[in-house]
């Protein structure tokens, strides 16, 4: 007999967890499923044993499709032992095992002599005969496991499915269990499909191995000896290279190659790491400036940051997510953004948990504590990303995160000094003088570093300086003396129109008054707020992020931005009184633009039937007759198109072309189309009167759209602005990067920076700066 699948997809609630599974188990062989926790091994086993419906594909038993086989017939062939436990009461082990005779007993379940014999045999086979009269609830986990195996065996199956059968057993019983199983397979010609975490045991008993990776794929199927290569196992389980061998002896003894955790340094590519004394010290901009400087000097530069924690992600052309700061740096470096520049992205979902995105793909939500333990498993991903970048870079500028001196988090660090060690990069440390205490920041940070880490720091940078530098000079001398590390530059405070990274930006705090006020509702889970930075190039426009209801009414344009959690932010709008204020504002006929989450909130209601966010349903603002249903699938893509015929304040937008990207979970559909105008194409946005909504991020980035929007509100207010100087976002940024690079060149010891990387500036200087 053989059980076999073809193109099988398994999962819960019609969502496939693992797709395209093709496996087979024959009588007399043992096949093992291995893979990291949560990969879906149990789900496969449950589906094969009929506990779950297959989502797609077929399961065959001897060429008969499983659905065409009656349930009781299937139960005679296949028996199952799963990990889940059911508490019993007043039940002896003998009784537990006797239930396995279900298919053999009559309607009343009375056991005959043959049944009793089979039960005793099974109990003896697993070495649990002495337990037969004991209460099942009062025996140890290992004993329970053996009794449950007896229960599976008493069914006299041809195929046995076991879910982690050895998990609760001590090493002695593990070995005994494995021996029992081997004996069974040989004597009774049973076929066994099992999942197992103990790779040593798998190697011992399994004939074939099926590896499931945590991206929902069958990674590899094959005989044990072929699959079990140390580096493959390390990759499959996200272990740091070498860590498997340290604990277990090399599973494949023929192969002898001691790998160290430090990456072998490619002699061609140089690294430079920018670390900061605190968040928002200006690391991102300094790194971007360095990227542009090296680019101007003729080097191929790429930015890198191992792990970003930000709400605001960027979607690459392949539809993958990465941090925005590296996108900005890539622009500065003149290269296309790639997820390898930011292999790990954490998007905070609530106060103590984050969505973890590795190489652009969501691998799940994790509480901070769990992630802290987990992250070392991501080192191979980081190194792999670095290797990819090395292929096309002379210099990799690495950005750190936060401060390298967070002594509580230093263990397992993979973003700051841990990262620098991985690739053996020199470090420049950036302090923020604007927030004060820059000497203490720099010296304190150095003080808290380990000696070998401190030795990595080759230069200090004082950032965001305003005023007369001569006053600072004595301080700098003392800093160099006490820190014994040269100051590589004092960079003045710059007002640049470049994208910010963190949610912790000064933007939010700023209150400005301009001729035109654009207010953005600062939702608690606001995301992608850089969509609106483009407005800042117009001096007459004041961009304010508001939190309280009374700030709304002054606005000339109200923007509802994207949200990481639309339902909860909608609730916040209601609770904070913001909703009433927005409705009052809209009733005056003033314009509102909703982007993504904000657009969803403008509708009649938002439903979350699958619990994608918080579950349930909430009424929206009711400004547009639309309804949003959250779906489990995430839509993300880059888009371009033409704005439809719209009326209202921004009728000038009609027919203009837009470019941007979509990233959202929900689908928004109009409830009635009478008054709605198509705003952006393919059902991504609608407008009605002065209310506009769209899913497109980066919508305002085009010069024409920006001009029309600002002109619209200016006309409504009766002011006349000269908008001719408004330029495309892209051109604006190019100008800003050059400005940044020039300023940094002027105030920094660039020769020293090249020196840190072992490059000669004179040689480099032959490629003169373009400006």
């Amino acid at each position, binding site marked *: 007999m053989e059980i076999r699948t073809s193109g099988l997809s398994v999962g819960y609630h019609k969502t496939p967890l693992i797709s395209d599974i093709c496996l087979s188990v024959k009588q007399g062989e043992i096949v093992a499923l291995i893979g990291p926790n949560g990969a879906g091994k149990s789900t496969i086993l449950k589906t094969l044993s009929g506990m779950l419906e297959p989502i797609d594909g077929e399961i065959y038993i001897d060429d008969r499709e499983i659905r065409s086989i009656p349930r009781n*017939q*299937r139960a005679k062939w296949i028996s199952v032992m799963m990990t889940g436990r059911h508490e019993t009461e007043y039940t002896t082990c003998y*009784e537990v095992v006797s*239930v396995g005779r*279900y298919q053999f007993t009559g309607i009343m379940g009375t056991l005959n002599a043959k049944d009793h014999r089979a039960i005793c045999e099974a109990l003896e086979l697993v070495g649990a005969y002495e337990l037969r009269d004991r209460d099942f609830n009062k025996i140890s986990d290992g004993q329970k496991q053996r009794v449950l195996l007896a229960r599976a065996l008493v069914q006299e199956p041809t195929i046995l499915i076991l879910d982690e059968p050895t998990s609760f057993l001590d090493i002695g019983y593990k070995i005994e269990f494995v021996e029992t199983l081997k004996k069974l397979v040989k004597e009774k010609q049973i076929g066994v499909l099992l999942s197992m975490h103990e790779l040593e045991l798998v190697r011992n008993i399994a004939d074939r191995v099926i590896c499931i990776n945590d991206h929902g794929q069958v990674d590899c199927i094959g005989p044990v000896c072929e699959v079990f290569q140390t580096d493959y196992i390390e990759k499959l389980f996200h272990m740091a290279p070498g860590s498997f061998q340290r604990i277990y002896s090399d599973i494949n003894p023929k192969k002898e190659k001691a790998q160290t955790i430090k990456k072998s340094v490619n002699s061609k590519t140089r690294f430079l790491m920018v670390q900061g004394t605190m968040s928002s010290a200006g690391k991102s901009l300094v790194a971007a400036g360095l990227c542009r400087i090296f680019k101007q000097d003729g080097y191929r530069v790429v930015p890198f940051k191992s792990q970003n924690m930000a709400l605001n992600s960027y979607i690459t052309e392949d539809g993958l997510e990465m941090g925005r700061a590296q996108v900005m740096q890539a622009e500065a470096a003149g290269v296309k953004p790639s997820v390898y520049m930011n292999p790990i992205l954490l998007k905070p979902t609530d106060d103590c948990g984050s969505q973890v995105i590795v190489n652009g793909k969501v691998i799940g939500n994790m509480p901070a504590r769990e992630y802290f333990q987990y992250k070392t498993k991501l080192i191979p991903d980081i190194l792999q990303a670095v290797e990819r970048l090395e292929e096309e870079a002379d210099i990799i500028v690495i950005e750190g995160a936060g401060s390298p001196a967070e002594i509580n988090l230093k263990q397992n660090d993979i973003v700051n000094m841990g990262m620098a060690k991985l690739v053996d990069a020199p470090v420049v440390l950036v302090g923020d003088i604007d927030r004060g205490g820059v000497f203490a920041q720099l010296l304190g940070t150095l003080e808290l570093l380990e000696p070998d880490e401190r030795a990595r720091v080759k230069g200090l940078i004082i950032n965001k300086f305003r005023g007369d530098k001569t006053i600072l000079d004595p301080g700098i001398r003392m800093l160099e003396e006490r820190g014994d590390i040269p100051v590589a530059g004092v960079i003045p405070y710059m007002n640049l129109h470049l994208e910010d990274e963190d949610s912790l930006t000064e933007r939010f705090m700023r209150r400005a008054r301009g001729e035109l006020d654009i207010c953005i509702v600062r939702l608690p889970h606001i995301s992608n707020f850089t969509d609106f930075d483009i407005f800042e190039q117009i001096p007459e426009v004041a961009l304010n992020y508001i939190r309280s209801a009374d700030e709304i009414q002054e606005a000339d344009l109200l923007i509802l931005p994207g949200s990481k959690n639309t339902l909860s932010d909608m609730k916040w709008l209601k609770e904070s009184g913001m909703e009433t204020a927005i409705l009052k504002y809209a009733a005056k006929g003033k314009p509102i633009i909703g982007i993504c989450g904000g657009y969803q909130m403008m509708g009649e209601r938002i439903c979350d039937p699958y619990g994608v966010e918080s579950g349930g349903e909430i009424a929206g603002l009711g400004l547009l007759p639309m309804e949003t249903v959250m779906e489990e699938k995430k839509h993300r893509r880059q888009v371009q198109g033409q704005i439809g015929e719209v009326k209202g304040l921004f009728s000038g937008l009609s027919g203009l072309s837009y470019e941007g990207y979509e990233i959202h979970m929900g689908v928004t559909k109009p409830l009635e189309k009478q008054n709605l105008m198509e705003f952006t194409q393919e059902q991504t946005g609608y407008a009605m009167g002065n209310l506009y909504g769209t899913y497109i991020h980066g919508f305002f980035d085009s010069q024409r759209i920006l001009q029309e929007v600002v002109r619209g509100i200016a006309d409504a207010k009766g002011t006349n602005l000269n908008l001719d100087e408004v330029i495309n976002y892209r051109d604006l940024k190019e100008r800003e990067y050059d400005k940044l690079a020039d300023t940094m060149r002027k105030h920094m010891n660039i020769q020293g920076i090249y020196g840190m990387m072992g490059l000669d500036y004179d040689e480099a200087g032959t490629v003169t700066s373009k400006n």
Partner: protein
Amino acid sequence: MTKRCTILFGLEIVLIFILIMVNMNTGSTDVSLPEVFSILISGGKGDVSSTIILDIRMPRMIAAFVLGGALALSGYLLQSFFHNPIAGPYVLGISSGAKLVVALLMVAAVKYGMVLSSVSMIIAALAGSFLATAFVIMVAKRVHNMSILIVCGVMIGYICSAVTELVVSFASDSNIVNLHTWSLGSFSSISWSQVHTFIPVVIVGLLASVLLSKRIEAFLYGEQYAISLGINVRVFRVILIGVSSLLSATVTAFAGPISFVGIAVPHIIRSTYKTSKPLVIMLASFLGGGAFCLFCDLLARYLFAPTELSISTITAIFGAPIVISLMIKRKRG
């Protein structure tokens, strides 16, 4: 079956016999035991004593025994369904749902001058049971916390009782006086014709339960295990809940909602028999439920005679502490 079970079964039967004797003997009119026997043997001479014994006490006793047993059995089936020993038709509001629909039907019947048959009462009670059960199952699908489920059940019970009270107070017809006693739960005024109706229904329920016992045992080890044994769990669950509702609805139709029997009796049986074999538990619970209700009915009649207490008052005094102790024992809810 173990020796322990055999002895306990014997004890239960003896207990029931004694309770029947005492019940026959006790009441507003004293009829001595020899007199009772002579009436039973001769089949009654038409005097006051024989009427009391044959037409009042006999049907009432049979009702207490059979309906009590049905209630305990219904409780056990619900517990198997929810995998939880705190489930029961009363705490989950199923009895109250049945009560509401029956009360509505009664009031309607009085208003339009119809005479209600016992069968129509059962059907009405069944409809009410199903409504309440459907609601409870819906809640159970959303929350996996038994305590919340029970709070919901109790709330449904309150709502149904409130509406029933409302209906009863407004229908101030003299015929409705009985309705009030009934709506609190009572075995009084059960007639022979009613006995003839509910006995077959309860026997059907009992037989169906016995036939389900093998599946229930497999189901004890979890739904997924039952599926792997080849049981069509969906169909099984529908039948299980159907039989349970039929039993509790029958009880409610004739004796009103009676509290806690469904939880207390199976619990006592499990912990004295020290087994969880469904067949044993079901039969023992049926006998035990009968004995328990005979005993409680005796107290209800005797304690403050001639005033009669509602049966639920007595059953609650014994049953509620058991529910509380069970909830404490299962801290995880």
